């Protein structure tokens, strides 16, 4: 395999969990190619968020391997993954509420503070609302604005891979559209994206490929389009209403 086709992220047979002796992920695998937008869907408790935390290093991996651009990073802490070009936006508590918008962005580029001006200008273009709120405390922003700030913080380092944990959770349909549009835009700029989503239909609509997780294992894998029309996936995970949409 040439270097160009080395997956940005390759997680194989990952076993991980929160409580001792209780595995949430039980041999789960995931692969994200350069510039790909990959979605992970599944029912509650399937291990979607756990997968993203395990590959990022926020959760200790008990088995399996995680490779970033071919380098084995299994068990490495999250701040090292950021150094290697990974950005992460958690589902909840994804901004520092007591810090201003500017301070949040500065935290995003903590490793390369000299690049703050250039990167914050780029983020202001991508998320214009942030430019007008620089001195505002992040905790005072609406859910949609926080999500924008959270993505901007994660993009400050110009990551090669962006991990998104349910970016549309808790947002109104209008704000959800906004978030998905931004995700497409970010991916269009060449950033590989691994996105966990509860809004499975919307997720598969914009993804190149998708994984369906169930009980900590890969249940189905395929292109977003194929999974969207797969009878079993519709039956079990998307709901029968998906057929008529």
């Amino acid at each position, binding site marked *: 395999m040439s270097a160009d086709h080395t997956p940005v992220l390759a997680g194989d047979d990952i076993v991980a969990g929160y409580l001792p002796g209780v595995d949430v992920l039980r041999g789960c695998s995931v692969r994200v190619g350069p510039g790909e937008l990959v979605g992970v869907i599944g029912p509650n408790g399937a291990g979607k968020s756990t997968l993203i935390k395990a590959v*990022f290093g926020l959760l200790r991996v008990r088995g399996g391997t995680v490779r970033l651009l071919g380098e084995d990073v299994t068990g490495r*802490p*999250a701040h090292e993954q950021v150094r290697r070009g990974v950005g992460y936006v*958690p589902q909840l508590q994804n901004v*520092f509420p007591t810090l201003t918008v500017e301070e949040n962005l500065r*935290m995003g580029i*903590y490793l390369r503070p000299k690049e703050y001006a250039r990167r914050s200008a780029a983020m202001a273009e991508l998320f214009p609302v942030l430019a007008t709120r620089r001195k505002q405390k992040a905790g005072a922003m609406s859910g949609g604005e926080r999500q924008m700030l959270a993505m901007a913080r*994660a993009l400050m380092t110009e990551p090669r891979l962006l991990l998104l944990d349910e970016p549309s959770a808790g947002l109104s349909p209008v704000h959800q559209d906004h978030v998905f549009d931004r995700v497409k835009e970010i991916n269009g700029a060449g950033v590989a994206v691994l996105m966990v989503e509860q809004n499975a239909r919307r997720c598969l609509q914009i993804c190149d490929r998708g994984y369906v997780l169930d009980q900590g294992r890969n249940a189905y894998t395929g292109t977003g389009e194929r999974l969207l029309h797969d009878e079993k996936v519709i039956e079990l995970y998307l709901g029968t209403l998906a057929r008529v949409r």
Partner: protein
Amino acid sequence: MRCPRVLLPVLALTLVLVAAPPAQGQGEVSRGRGFGARLLQSLVDGVQFGVIIAVTAVGLSLLFGTIHLINFAHGEFVTIGAAFAFFLNVSAAGPGWHLIPAAAAAVVFGALLGAAVDRGLWRPLRARGTGLINLFIVTIGLSLLLRHVVLVLFGARPASFAQYDIQNAIRLGAIGITPRDLTVTLLSVAVLVGVAVLLQRTRTGTAVRAVSVNRDLAEASGIDVQRVVLVVWILSGALAALGGVFYGLVEIITWDMGFKLLLLMFAGIILGGLGSAYGAMVGSLVIGIVAQVSTLWFPVDLQYAWALLVLIVILLVRPEGILGRPERTG
């Protein structure tokens, strides 16, 4: 609006105290001076006491904010700072340095001690996923151990530093203050301002605040959280040692001075808002002032009790503390 809410309990308490008649037969110092002058003097003494508590309490608060550790051994860091400076300054076995370099060396020693206990004890315990209650029990054990090591090395007899021991007070109108106490107060205020600038204006300080707010998100931003925690331990150890020197200078050095101060430190940080460095400063100041002003009416032996009573009253009105943020529970 935050400011009036903060001031309200303090103003109410001040009004109650001013309105009440002073107790008869208080100490000799208070005799022969007007009530206003004695109140002013108590306020000055209270501010001095409060800023010293604040210097020691800020580190305790930062530790709680970043790793949620209730460090019961923090008082011993205070004692060790004073005892180490005493060793360098006064002890026959020591080099007999002047207090100023001895104090500077004690601060460095406190910082190194903070780093050592993080690297040698707390980090391995955190890595093993030890629960917060267990960690709290370990701090109690460490407190007992360190306190008795100090008792063995320092002895049970109270002692003073070689310099700045006895001074005449400078009269500033109704207020009398020794140059030593004035210097300690001003230095304490300068240190607290320095800590605030560090937290607010520097990259490391912002990282400390970020870790306090959300540890995982800080890690996800590329911040080496373990390194930030080490910085907090170093800062905490250094400030505790400095506070110990200050407290030993204006009062007296004893083997359990830090332990006795610990309750007031906890009161200060709880009153100000757990985990907030600025809250610890404000809370400690209130505790110090209440403790001193209470002696206008009540016996000195009860001054800490009044400070703790105020803690209870304010928490009944504002459970999150003066500068704390309400926690969302649902």
